[in-house]
Each structure stands twice: as structure tokens, then as C-alpha cells.
């Protein structure tokens, strides 16, 4: 077991290195020298040179002990991403965004999961009937409507017309009031794809012999569905959930943008708007690292839970 974990940890190194290489190529080699952009339009040559020196754009790219790639590497390993273009520390910005993002995506994810799994169980139970067909049609139709339209229409109708929710994030009110509508919209917009996915899983499960046995024993429908079938369908559900966990922290950038929730998605949109490569670079690295760690944890959990997995 220890050897397995160590091997997996060693396997992480080339992946993390690869992520660093990709971000470096994107933002430093392709993105290029942005000192002119930082200095502004009317800056003279001397200011630009100073900025170029401060950010290290005058160093060689690779192949030197004092190259830009080594700097990039050092910044990532020490988690010291320096300052954004508005001179605030990037780590501070990210730390501030995690909370609001989780407040939005956490309940959204749980709600979505509960609704989708329960509905999928019921639909799998009535498979082949007109209810099943109409549910699939609605799912496909829901998947075809663009996410943006869901958000804009929801915000217009529920917040502006009916005035049930605040239109935009209110810093002085409790958070729950502002994230209510985005959560509902997020659940509805994502339901089509999720429901379809879980329906497939449930259909695979509900055709098994043990379901027939359970019904033959005289158990009630809800007991069979929510106790027996759900338990057996847990493995694919858990896999799906664990892989989605790290992206929860990332927030939902479109929802955050529309409702002005100051989370990480909002930070990302802002960074794109101002072409702040430093923030995008830091976020890319941190989230890739999170995903690597979560994948490792999942594998270890599987190995612990399922004795059939060998540690080779």
C-alpha cells in the first residue's frame, strides 16, 4: 500500500511539470512581453524598460539558471504568484474568492445531485412508458438551450419581473439571499444532462435479478428503488461526484458574472477582461494541482475500499 501511494506520488511529478510547461508556453512564450500593456499607452521607453526588468521579461526564456522558466517554476512551487495588475496579491484575491464560490456551487451541486438521482430512479422505474419518453425529450431539449439563455431569462423573470430574489449580489445582506436564484438556475440548466446520465446508470441497475427478487418479496416500490437500487448504483455516482468536487471550488463563472457574486469565476472573468495573465496562470496551476491531488485520493480510496484492485 505504501509503495502504491509513493508510486502514485512520483507519477504526479511529471504531470505537475507538464502543467507548468503548458502555462509557461501559453502565457510567456505565446502571450509574450506584456510590459507595454502594464505600463499603459502613454508610457515612455524608460518606464517600459523598468517594468520589463521588474517582471523579468528581459531574461532568456529557457536554458539559463536565471531564465524566465525557472522563475515561473519557483513561483508555482512556492505558491507565491506575486501581484496582479492592480497590485493586489494574487493569493489574497484567490483566498477571498473561494468562500463565495463554494456558497454558490456547493448547494447547487448537492441539489442537482439529489434531484437528478431521485428523478432518474423514478424514470428508470417507469421505463418504456410515455412518461419516460417525454422525460428524455425534455432532457434533450433542456440540453439544447444555451446556458446563457437560462441565466438571462431566469434573472429577468424571477428577479426583475416577479421580484422574488435580488437581481444582483448584495454585500450587506446574508449570502443565502443572493445565491438563491443562481442556485435554482444552475440546477435547472444542468438538469437535462445530469438526468440523462443517471437514467442510463439506473437503467443498467434496475434490469438486474435482485430487483425482481425484491419486488417478489413484496417490498414497496419506494423501498426497492431508494434502498436496493440506489445502493447498488452508488459506485458510478460516487465516481462522478468525486471527480466534480475540485471544480466546485472553481465556481460557476457565468452565474457569478451575471449575479455579481465575488467568487473565483468572477475573478477569472475579470482577469480575462483585463488580460491579466498572472491571475489566469495562478488559477490554472492551483486548480490543476487540486485535480491531481483529488484523482490521487480517489485512487487510494478505491484501493482501500475494493480489495480487487491490485497495487501494481
Amino acid at each position, binding site marked *: 500500500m505504501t509503495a502504491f501511494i509513493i508510486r502514485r506520488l512520483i507519477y504526479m511529478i511529471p504531470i505537475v511539470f507538464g502543467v507548468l510547461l503548458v502555462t509557461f508556453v501559453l*502565457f510567456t512564450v505565446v502571450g509574450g512581453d506584456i510590459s507595454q500593456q502594464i505600463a499603459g499607452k502613454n508610457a515612455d521607453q524608460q518606464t517600459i524598460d523598468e517594468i520589463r526588468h521588474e517582471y523579468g521579461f528581459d531574461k532568456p526564456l529557457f536554458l539559463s539558471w536565471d531564465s524566465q522558466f525557472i522563475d515561473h517554476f519557483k513561483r508555482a512551487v512556492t505558491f507565491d504568484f506575486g501581484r496582479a495588475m492592480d497590485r493586489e496579491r494574487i493569493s489574497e484575491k484567490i483566498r477571498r474568492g473561494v468562500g463565495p464560490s463554494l456558497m454558490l456551487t456547493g448547494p447547487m451541486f448537492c441539489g442537482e445531485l439529489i434531484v437528478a438521482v431521485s428523478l432518474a430512479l423514478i424514470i428508470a422505474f417507469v421505463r418504456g412508458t410515455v412518461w419516460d419518453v417525454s422525460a428524455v425529450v425534455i432532457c434533450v431539449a433542456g440540453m439544447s438551450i*444555451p446556458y*446563457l*439563455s437560462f441565466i438571462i*431569462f431566469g434573472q429577468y423573470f424571477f428577479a426583475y419581473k416577479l421580484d422574488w430574489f435580488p437581481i444582483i449580489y448584495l454585500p450587506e445582506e446574508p449570502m443565502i439571499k443572493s445565491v438563491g436564484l443562481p442556485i435554482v438556475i444552475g440546477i435547472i440548466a444542468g438538469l437535462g444532462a445530469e438526468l440523462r446520465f443517471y437514467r442510463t446508470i439506473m*437503467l443498467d441497475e434496475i434490469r438486474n435479478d435482485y430487483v425482481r427478487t425484491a419486488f417478489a418479496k413484496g417490498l414497496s416500490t419506494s423501498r426497492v428503488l431508494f434502498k436496493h437500487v440506489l445502493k447498488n448504483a452508488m459506485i458510478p455516482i460516487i465516481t462522478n461526484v468525486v471527480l466534480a468536487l475540485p471544480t466546485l471550488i472553481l465556481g460557476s463563472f457565468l452565474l457569478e458574472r451575471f449575479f455579481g457574486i465575488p467568487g473565483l469565476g468572477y475573478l*477569472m472573468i475579470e482577469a480575462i477582461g483585463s488580460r491579466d495573465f498572472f491571475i*489566469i496562470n495562478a488559477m490554472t496551476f492551483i486548480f490543476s494541482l487540486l485535480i491531481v491531488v483529488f484523482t490521487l485520493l480517489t485512487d487510494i480510496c478505491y484501493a482501500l475500499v475494493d480489495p480487487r484492485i491490485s497495487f501494481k
Partner: protein
Amino acid sequence: MSETTTQQNEPVSRGYWSDAFRRLRRRKLAMVCFIIVLIYAAMAAFVGIVETETFKKIFKLDVPIVRWNEQVGPSYQKPMAQYDFKPEQSETKVKGWSLFGTDFLGESTLRKTLYGVKTSMLVAFCASIISIGIGVPLGALAGYYRGWVDETIVWFYTTLGTIPYILLLMAFAVALRGREFFGVEIRGAPAVYLAIGLTSWVGLCRLIRGEIIKRKESEYVLAARAMGCSDFRILFSHLLPNVFHIILINFSLRFVSFIHAEVILSFLGLGENDKPSWGAMIDAARTELARDVWWEMAAATAAIFLISLALNIFSDALRDCLDPKLRID
């Protein structure tokens, strides 16, 4: 091959493809969807051809429906209504009628939506081609050669797959935008499809690699090798045709997500800047809805909805027909 030897009274043998397409043709709904997709493609091609200067010169024809930036009515004219309108240059008033209304500048929403078809289909098509062009050869090489080739390619796509997709896509779109490569500045639609295409090949590559690994020990490959075929020939004329249906299914399934990605990127201002696109139209609707201007968003949403629905249904049918083992319902 077998047609020449088939006797009159023997049943006609059907190949894999003709059988699959026979099954597909029987599904009426899927065929309707396919026709919708073809209509969209034809509209995109029409707009793309008619707006070029060479077309205008050769045919001496200026088709009004592609002149999206012409002022056709007053600002925010309601759809399906008659209106009086005085164009800037002329003194007299003109009577007009618009199907989908006009936007803030008095441009026709219908024309903008039509132009959006071209933008969106072009982006999705080019992104698919780039994605397949990278994913399929890399996956095939990795699966066929294994060893260090495999390890390098797997390392590369695991790395890209580790970065959350939406971050990767936006990072590519931001970094590529406005850069010059070989003297060509990347902006507008090419920036979008390059970003989508360069980031979306990972899943396909993984899939093709797995299939090639599964099939490379098959008897037909061994037979080809025994006859002295080169690796290249085995890979590209024996193995790849056998996984072609997977590529086709993947192509149609992901076309929808590329259309939606284009909408989101345009909305974020990372897409076409001076030409209409559905994302930009939806973005405009953000402020317009409060003034009860709903038609611009409705037109863009309806256009996206129709093509996505048609593609979704058609790809499901295509998957069922081409790969019965993958059937889910």
C-alpha cells in the same frame, strides 16, 4: 468484392456501412434532424459565399439578406410589425416590415441571426477538424507503438486533461488572441476555433488509443503484417477505417458542445468582435431585456436551440446505428 460472385437468387449481402445507413434511414425523426443540420450548413455556406467580394464581382449581385450591418428600421423595432422609417441618406420615409425586429442600431435581427449561423458553423466545423486532426493521429500512434511514444503522448494529454477544461479553453483563447503566427494575426473566428480545437482533442485521443490497443492484435492486423505491410499502412489503411465510426460519432456529438463553447467565448468578448454572432446577440440582450426588447435574445436562443436539438437527436441515432454495442436505451 462480392457483388461479382453474387447469384441472382442469393440474398444480397450488406456491408457494415450500408447496413448502418439503412437502419438510420428508417428513423424518421433522425432524418428530419439531419435535414435541419444540412439546412444550417447550407445557410452557412450561402452566407459565406455570397458575402465575398469575388462573388459580388462575378455575379454582380449584392444579396440584401447578408448585409447585416445595414440600417433597416428604427432602433428596437418590434418584430412582425409595420413601421415607417427614414433612412439616413434619403428624405422620404419608407414603409418597412420586419420579421424578427431590429436591434439598437436598427439592424435587422433576422440578418444578424443568419450571419450568426455562418460564424457558429464555421467555428464548430474548423474546431472539429483541428480536434480530430490532432487527436486521431496521436491516439493511433500511441496505441500502436506503445513504449516511449505512448508514454510521451499519454503524459501530454494527461497534463492537458488535468487542467479544468473551462480554464484551459479560456487560457488558450486569451493567450492566442491578437498574436501573430507566421505573419498572420489571429483574431475573430480563427482565434475561437483554434482555442477550442487545440484544447478539445484529449478525450478523442484517449478513446482512439484504447480502441487501437484493443484491435492491434486482431487477426486482420496479424494477416496484414504477415503479408509484409508497413506499420504506416496497417495503421492508416487497416486500423483507422475500423475505428472510423467512433470518430464520426464523436464528431457529431461534440459539434453541439463546440457551438455552445463559441457562444460563451463570444459572450465573454473572446470571439468575433465586429461581426454578429449568437453569443454577442445574447450579450446585448442582457441590458435589453429590462426594456422589454426580447426578440434579439429569442432569435439567437431559437437558432441555437434548433441546431443543438437536431444534432443531439441525430448523433444519438447515429450512435445507435453505427455502434449497436454502445446502445444505452
